[in-house]
C-alpha cells in the first residue's frame, strides 16, 4: 500500500570551504528516494546555508519505504565543471513506519564523506503518511517492530514468544579489492554503502514478513551481520526471535495489578499456612486466565506460590516437599512432552533472547555449538542464495540435535557468526540448550493444574540449574549432586551457558569476566587443503578453550559461566580462539573443588618441589579470589542442633539421607577435598606453560569489576553515570620462529594489556564495573591481530554496595531496580517466597553471623551460621513483610501527598533542568550503552532500530595521524552519527548498542587505509527515575513510586 514520504531541507552549518578563491561554498542539496530525485536551490556563498526548502514529496509503496534509505547529498555548485559532492546523509525511515515509534525525524545530521569524514551538518525534517491503514500489512511488513535488545523490551509485555526467524540476502560486492582497483575508491565505497543499506532494508522487510506469517508483531534480539566474502560476494544475514508484544499502558494496566496484591498483603499477616493461591486469582483458576505476561506481577505471584510449597517453612502446606521431589521425575517428562508439542512444529526451536520473562526458562542443559568450514565460491544467482541457506540450515540442524542429546527441546541465547579468510569461511553457531515453559510459546494451550505442577518442579532460584537430561543416560560424564538450594533435583557440578544470569538465580558473591585465549599455527595452504587443516584443528581448539575456561573458573572458586561466547577466527597462518564469559558462584551448584597439579616424574626431588610450589601458588590464588569476589557459600551443616524451627531439621534429615545414598554429596562437602579436585597433569613443558598462563591473569585493580553479561552479579546499586567506549588495537604477533606457546603468550598479553589500559582510562569512575565487555578478534593480515572491545563502565555506589555484598542473592532486586514493571511485583515475590530466592536482609545476616564467628573452626562455624540464618530469616522475614506493607501503603498514598510537595519538588526539578540550558549547549546529550537498560532511568519509548554501516578511507594516512589517528577519528564519527540519528528521532539514548563489524585494512606503502564499521542498537527515550518522582502530575509516574520506596527500605 502506498505511502507519502515528505522531506524538507532546512539549513546547513559549518560546511567546508569548497571554493578556495572566495573561501565560501555554493551549496545545494539533492534528495533521493528510490528513483526519484529532488533538488534545492543553490544557496550561494555561505558556509551556513539556509535552504528552507519546500516539502519534497515521494509517493511510493511501502515495500520501497522499507527497503530504500533516504539519500541526501550536499553538493557545491560549480558553473563550469561538475558539481562537487560535499557529503551524504543516509536516513533509515523505518522507525516512521510503525505507529508506536517515532512520528518525525528532525534534526542536525553530520554530512559524511567516505574520504573526508564529517563535513558540517544539515538540518532535515522527514515525515511519512501511510495510506490505507487497514491493508497495509499485506504486501510488506510495515509495522513489525524490530529490537536489538535480547530481552523483552522494557515497556512491552510478551504475549507469545513465537520463535526463530532468519533470512539472508546476497549480492555482488561493488568493491572487493579496493586498494588495487582503478575506479575511484570513493565511488565504489559510496556504492557499497548504498547497497548494504538497501540490502539490510530488504532483509528486514523479509524477516518482517516471516514474523507476520507467524502472527507475531515484533522481532526481539534482532542481529544482522554482513559477510564480506570478497570475490564471492556480499552476504547480509539476520536472525531474531519473533514475538507478539503488547505495549504496557502504564497506568491502566499497571496500577490495579500492583495495588490489589498490596492490599491483600496488608490484610494477610504472616501466618503458619500461607495459601499458595492467595495472590493469584483463585484456587480453581490459578493460571489459565492469565495469558503469559511479562508484567511480572502475575508471573511472580504465580511462581512464588509454587516455590512456597517447595520450600516453605511450614510443613502443613498440603503438598509435602518430599512428595514434590518424588514427583519431579514424572513432571519433567510431562513437561517435556508439553514443550515438545509446542515446539515441534518449529523447524528450529531457537531463541536469540538471553534474558527471559520469569518462569520462561525451566531447565538449562548447557552450551551447544557447531562449526563448519566452507569454501566460498562465487554466488552465481543473487536471487537464490541457496548455498548459504543450506550451510546455515545444516549447522542449525546440528545445534538442534545437540540440544536434543541434552534432553532439551529448545536453544536459547542463540547466535551465529562467521570468520572469513580468503576463500575459507568458518560458520559458527552456539546457544544454550534449555527446556522452556510452553505457556509462553503458545496462547492458552496449557491446563492450569499441570502448569501449577510444573512450577513446583522448578523453584525459581535454582530450577534452571536442574538437569534436563536423564540421570542414567547422561550425554556426557558429569558429577551430579542434589541441588544445594532445594535438595530435590540433581544439578551438575558446573554450568556453562550463553545466556544472561536469570533474574531469579541465587548467586553468592560477585561475578567476574573470564577469558580463554588461544592461538594455533597452521600451514598456509590453498582451498581444500586449507579447509581440511582448519577442520582438523577446530576440535582441538574447542577442547583447549574449554579446558582453559574450566581451569580459570575453578581458579576463581566459581561454578558457572554465563554469556559464554567463543569466537574462532581464521587467518592465513593461524587460528585464534577467544572465549569470554562471566563466572559466578551459583548457590544451587556444589562448591568447585580446587585444582591439583600432578607431575609425571615423581622421583626428581627438585621437580617435586617445583610442583608443590606451583600447587601452593594455585591454592593461594583460589583463596585470594574467593576473598576478592566475596564467595562465602554457607557451608553445609553436618547436623543442626537445637534448632527452634522444625523445618530445617527436616531438611537436614532429608539431606543426610541423600548424602548417605550418594557419595558425591559427602565428597563435595569437603569443599577443598583433594578427591574432588580437578587434576592438571604436568607432563611436559607445554603443560607447564599452561599452568603458568593460568596464573598470569591479574585481577582488575581494586574498585573495578568486569563482566560480559548485562549486569554484574552481586552489584545492584548503579548510579546513572555511564561511559560506553570502543577500544581497538592491532598488534603484530611477530616472533622469528613463532610457536604456539609464544603466540599464546603474546595474545594473552595483548588482551591483558588492553584490559589494564581500560582500567587505567576509567580510573576516575571507580568504584565501577565494566559491563557487557565484548571482545572481537580479527586477523587482518599475517601476524596482525586486531582486537576490538566495546563495553560500558557503570559507577556504583560503594556504600550501598557494602551492604549489598553481604546479601549474596539480590539479583532479582538488582534487576528490578532497572525496570519498574518488574519492581512492582517485587514485594509479592518477597512475601511469598522466603527461602528459594533468599531475599534481602536474611542473607545479610548469614554473613554477619559468619563474620562474628571467625575464630571458630570451619565445621562448627558452618552449623552456627546456618542456625542463625534460619532463625533470622524467619524473624526478618516477618519484619520485611511488615515493612513492605508499610511502604506499599505509603507508596499508594504518595500520589496524593506528592501534590503538597509539588512546589519544592518542582523547584528541584527546574533547578535540575536549568543546568544544561544555562550553558547554552545546543547539542542534546545522547547516551549509548550495550546494555538493554540505563541505570537509574526508565525507558518510556522505543523509537526504532538503528542499523548503520559506514566506510571511511584515506589516501593520506600519515597526514591524518597514522592508523591510530585515522581510526580514532572514524570511531568518533560513527558515534556522532549514531547520536545524531537518535536525537533526530527524538530519542536520548541508544540501548543494546553493538559494533558488529570493524574491518580495518591498511597499505602503509601507499599511505592508504580503509575501515568499515557496522553498528546497531535501539533508539529510546528514557526518563531519569529521579525526574519521574519529581513530576507528580503525571499519573504514569505514580506507578513506580511504591517500589522505589520499597527498594530504599530493603537496601
Amino acid at each position, binding site marked *: 500500500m502506498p505511502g507519502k514520504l515528505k522531506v524538507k531541507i532546512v539549513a546547513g552549518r559549518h560546511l567546508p570551504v569548497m571554493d578556495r578563491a572566495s573561501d565560501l561554498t555554493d551549496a545545494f542539496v539533492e534528495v533521493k528516494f528510490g528513483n526519484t530525485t529532488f533538488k534545492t536551490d543553490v544557496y550561494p556563498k555561505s558556509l551556513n546555508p539556509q535552504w528552507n526548502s519546500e516539502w519534497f514529496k515521494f509517493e511510493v509503496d511501502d515495500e520501497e519505504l522499507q527497503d530504500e534509505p533516504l539519500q541526501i547529498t550536499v553538493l557545491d555548485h560549480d558553473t563550469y565543471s561538475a558539481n562537487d559532492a560535499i557529503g551524504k546523509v543516509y536516513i533509515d525511515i523505518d522507525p516512521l513506519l510503525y505507529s508506536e515509534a517515532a512520528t518525525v525525524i528532525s534534526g542536525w545530521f553530520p554530512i559524511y564523506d567516505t574520504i573526508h569524514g564529517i563535513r558540517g*551538518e544539515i538540518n532535515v525534517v522527514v515525515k511519512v503518511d501511510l495510506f490505507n491503514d487497514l491493508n497495509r500489512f499485506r504486501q510488506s511488513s510495515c509495522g513489525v517492530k524490530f529490537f536489538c535488545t535480547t530481552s523483552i523490551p522494557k515497556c512491552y509485555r510478551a504475549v507469545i514468544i513465537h520463535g526463530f526467524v532468519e533470512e539472508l540476502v546476497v549480492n555482488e560486492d561493488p568493491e572487493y579489492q579496493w586498494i588495487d582497483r582503478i575506479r575511484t575508491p570513493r565511488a565504489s565505497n559510496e556504492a557499497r554503502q548504498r547497497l548494504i543499506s538497501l540490502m539490510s532494508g530488504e532483509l528486514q522487510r523479509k524477516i518482517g514478513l516471516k514474523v507476520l506469517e507467524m502472527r507475531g508483531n515484533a522481532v526481539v534480539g534482532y542481529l544482522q551481520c554482513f559477510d564480506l566474502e570478497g570475490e564471492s560476494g556480499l552476504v547480509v544475514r539476520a536472525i531474531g526471535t519473533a514475538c507478539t508484544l503488547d505495549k504496557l499502558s502504564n497506568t491502566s494496566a499497571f496500577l490495579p495489578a500492583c495495588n490489589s496484591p498490596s492490599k491483600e498483603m496488608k490484610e494477610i499477616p504472616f501466618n503458619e499456612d500461607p495459601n499458595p493461591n492467595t495472590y493469584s486469582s483463585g484456587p480453581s483458576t490459578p493460571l489459565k486466565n492469565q495469558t503469559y505476561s511479562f508484567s511480572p506481577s502475575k508471573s511472580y505471584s504465580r511462581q512464588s506460590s509454587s516455590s512456597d510449597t517447595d520450600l516453605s517453612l511450614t510443613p502443613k502446606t498440603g503438598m509435602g516437599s518430599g512428595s514434590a521431589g518424588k514427583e519431579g521425575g514424572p513432571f519433567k517428562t510431562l513437561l517435556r512432552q508439553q514443550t515438545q508439542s509446542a515446539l515441534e512444529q518449529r523447524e528450529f526451536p531457537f531463541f536469540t533472547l538471553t534474558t527471559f520473562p520469569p518462569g520462561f526458562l525451566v531447565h538449562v542443559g548447557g552450551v551447544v555449538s557447531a562449526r563448519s568450514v566452507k569454501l566460498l565460491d562465487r554466488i552465481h544467482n543473487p536471487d537464490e542464495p541457496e548455498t548459504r541457506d543450506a550451510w546455515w540450515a545444516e549447522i542449525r540442524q546440528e545445534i538442534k540435535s545437540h540440544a536434543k542429546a541434552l534432553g532439551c527441546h529448545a536453544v536459547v541465547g542463540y547466535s551465529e557468526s562467521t570468520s572469513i579468510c580468503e576463500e575459507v569461511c568458518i560458520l559458527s553457531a552456539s546457544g544454550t540448550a534449555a527446556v522452556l515453559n510452553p505457556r509462553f510459546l503458545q496462547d492458552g494451550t496449557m491446563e492450569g493444574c499441570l502448569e501449577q505442577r510444573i512450577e513446583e518442579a522448578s523453584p525459581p532460584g535454582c530450577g534452571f540449574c536442574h538437569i534436563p537430561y536423564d540421570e542414567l543416560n547422561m550425554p556426557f560424564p558429569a558429577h551430579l549432586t542434589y541441588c544445594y538450594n532445594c535438595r530435590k533435583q540433581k544439578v551438575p557440578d558446573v554450568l556453562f551457558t550463553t545466556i544472561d544470569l536469570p533474574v531469579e538465580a541465587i548467586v553468592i558473591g560477585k561475578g567476574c569476566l573470564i577469558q580463554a585465549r588461544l592461538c594455533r599455527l597452521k600451514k598456509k595452504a590453498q582451498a581444500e587443503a586449507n579447509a581440511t587443516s582448519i577442520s582438523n584443528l577446530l576440535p582441538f581448539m574447542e577442547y583447549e578453550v574449554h579446558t582453559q575456561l574450566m581451569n580459570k573458573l575453578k581458579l576463581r572458586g566459581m561454578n558457572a559461566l554465563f554469556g559464554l561466547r567463543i569466537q574462532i577466527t581464521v587467518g592465513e597462518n593461524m587460528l585464534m580462539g577467544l572465549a569470554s564469559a562471566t563466572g559466578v558462584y551459583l548457590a544451587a551448584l556444589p562448591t568447585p573443588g580446587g585444582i591439583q597439579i600432578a607431575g609425571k616424574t615423581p622421583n626428581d626431588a627438585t621437580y617435586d618441589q617445583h610442583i608443590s610450589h606451583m600447587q601452593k601458588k594455585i591454592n593461594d590464588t583460589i583463596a585470594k579470589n574467593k576473598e576478592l569476589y566475596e564467595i562465602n557459600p554457607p557451608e553445609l551443616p553436618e547436623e543442626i542442633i537445637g534448632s527452634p524451627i522444625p523445618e530445617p531439621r527436616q531438611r537436614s534429615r532429608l539431606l543426610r539421607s541423600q548424602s548417605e545414598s550418594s557419595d558425591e554429596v559427602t565428597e563435595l562437602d569437603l569443599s577443598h577435598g583433594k578427591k574432588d579436585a580437578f587434576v592438571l597433569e604436568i607432563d611436559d613443558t607445554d603443560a607447564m606453560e599452561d599452568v603458568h598462563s593460568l596464573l598470569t591473569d591479574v585481577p582488575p585493580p581494586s574498585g573495578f569489576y568486569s563482566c560480559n553479561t548485562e549486569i554484574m552479579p552481586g552489584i545492584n546499586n548503579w548510579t546513572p553515570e555511564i561511559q560506553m567506549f570502543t577500544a581497538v588495537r592491532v598488534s603484530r604477533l611477530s616472533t622469528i620462529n613463532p610457536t604456539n606457546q609464544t603466540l599464546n603468550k603474546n595474545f594473552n598479553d595483548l588482551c591483558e594489556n588492553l584490559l589494564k589500559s*581500560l582500567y587505567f582510562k576509567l580510573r576516575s569512575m571507580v568504584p565501577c564495573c565494566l559491563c557487557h565487555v565484548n571482545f572481537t578478534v580479527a586477523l587482518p593480515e599475517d601476524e596482525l591481530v586486531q582486537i576490538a572491545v566495546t563495553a560500558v563502565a557503570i559507577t556504583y555506589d560503594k556504600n550501598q554496595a557494602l551492604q549489598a555484598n553481604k546479601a549474596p542473592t539480590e539479583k532479582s532486586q538488582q534487576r528490578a531496580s532497572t525496570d519498574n514493571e518488574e519492581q512492582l511485583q517485587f514485594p509479592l515475590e518477597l512475601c511469598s517466597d522466603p527461602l528459594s530466592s533468599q531475599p534481602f536482609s536474611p542473607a545479610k545476616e548469614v554473613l554477619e553471623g559468619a563474620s562474628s564467628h571467625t575464630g571458630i573452626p570451619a565445621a562448627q562455624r558452618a552449623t552456627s551460621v546456618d542456625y542463625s540464618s534460619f532463625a533470622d530469616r524467619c524473624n526478618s522475614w516477618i519484619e520485611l513483610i511488615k515493612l513492605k506493607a508499610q511502604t506499599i501503603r505509603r507508596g499508594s498514598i504518595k500520589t496524593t501527598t506528592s501534590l503538597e510537595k509539588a512546589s519544592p519538588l518542582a523547584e528541584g526539578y527546574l533547578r535540575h533542568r536549568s543546568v544544561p540550558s544555562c550553558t547554552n549547549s545546543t547539542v542534546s546529550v545522547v547516551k549509548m550503552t550495550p546494555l538493554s537498560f540505563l541505570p537509574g532511568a526508565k525507558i518510556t519509548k522505543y523509537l526504532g532500530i538503528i542499523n548503520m554501516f559506514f566506510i571511511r578511507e584515506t589516501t593520506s594516512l600519515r597526514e591524518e*595521524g597514522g592508523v591510530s589517528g585515522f581510526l580514532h577519528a572514524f570511531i568518533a564519527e560513527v558515534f556522532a552519527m549514531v547520536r545524531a540519528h537518535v536525537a533526530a528521532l527524538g530519542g536520548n539514548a541508544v540501548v543494546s548498542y553493538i559494533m558488529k563489524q570493524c574491518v580495518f585494512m591498511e597499505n602503509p606503502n601507499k599511505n592508504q587505509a580503509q575501515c568499515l564499521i557496522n553498528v546497531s542498537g535501539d533508539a529510546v527515550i528514557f526518563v531519569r527515575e529521579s525526574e519521574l518522582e519529581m513530576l507528580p502530575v503525571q499519573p504514569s509516574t505514580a506507578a513506580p513510586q511504591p517500589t522505589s520506596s520499597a527498594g530504599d527500605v530493603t537496601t
Partner: protein
Amino acid sequence: MSSDLDVFVGNTTLIDEEVYRLWLDGHSVAEAVARRLRGGVLEREGTSVAVLQSDTRDHYRTFQMLERLLHAPPRLLQQLLFQIPPERQALLVQRYYAFDEALARELLGKKLSKGTKKELDEVSARTGVGIRSCRRQFDNFKRVFKAVEELRGPLAENIQQLFLLDYAAIVFFANSRFETGKRRLQFLSFADFAACAQSMMGHWSQGALGEPPDPRAPEAAEPDGDLPKSFLQDLKELKVLVADKDLLDQHKSLVCSALRGKISVYNELEANFKALSRALVNVGGKLTHARDVRDFFVDLVEKVIEPCRSDKWSPGDLRLFLTHYTAARHQALWERYMAAITACLLRMYHD
C-alpha cells in the same frame, strides 16, 4: 610485540586534566609520559609504562582533533563529533586560552606580527615558557585580536561571546599599543597592566556611560578596543586646569586644606602639587595623539609615581591625595577621567 594501532574512544570524550595541561605546555608524548611517571601515577594506579604511553597518546590525539574546534569556541558547543559535558567544554576553552602572565607581559603592546612571532624563541628563554606553548599563546592572542578587530560593540563582551572568556586586556593593549617594555616599567606585572586596562575600558569606553551607544554617534562605528574619540577630544578641555594659574591655585588650596594634618607627606605635597597636577592632567590631554598614547604609562610612572616614591609617600597617602584631588572639582568629564587614572595609579604604586 608492538601495537601498531591503539585507540580508545568514549561516547563521552574523556578529558584528563593533567594530560591536557602537559599538552598545552607543549610537551611531546614522550616528555608527557616522563612527567606523568614522575608524578607517581604508576605507583598510585599500579599500571605499566606501556599503558601510560597508550593513554597519553590517546589523549594527545583527542586534543589535536579538538584543537581545530577550540579555535572557534562557539563551534565546540555546536559540534557533534565529541560529546563533552558543558563544564568540561568550558574547562577546555579556559585552559586553552589561558596565558602565562610572564609571556603576556612580554607581548603587551607589541604588534602581533610575524616579526614578533620570530622573537618568541628569546621570549621563551626569558620567561621559561616552552616555545610550543609560546607559539600557541601568541596565536591565541592573534586569533582573538583578529576576530574582534572587525566587530562593533563592547570589546569585553565580544570576546566573551566569541571565546567565552576575558581576553579584553590583551586586545586593548594590542589595539592601543601602549609602551610597556621600557626599563622604567619593568616593575609592573601583567596583572597590573590588565587591571589598568580594565579600569580604562570600564570608565572611559563608550559602554561605560551606562547608556546604549547612540548609533548615530561616530564612536558607535568604532570598535570598542579604541577609546572613544569624542571623549579624548573632550579631555583637552581639562588642560585649562593647569594652564589657568587661578584655577590651579584654587585647586591647590582646596586639596591642601582638605589634607592638612591628614597626610604625613603634607609638605612634600604642597611643594609638588603643581608638578603633579600638571602631569596628571597632561597625560589625558596627550591621549588624542597616537604617538603620545604610547607614553601613557611611561608618563604616569615618570611624572607621578617616581616623584611620590622618592618623597616616600605611602599608598594611603596617594589614595587620600587622589581622592581629594578628584573631589575638589565637580565635573562629569573630570570625574570620569580621574576615576580610571586613580585606579591605575593605585594599582601601579608598588615596588
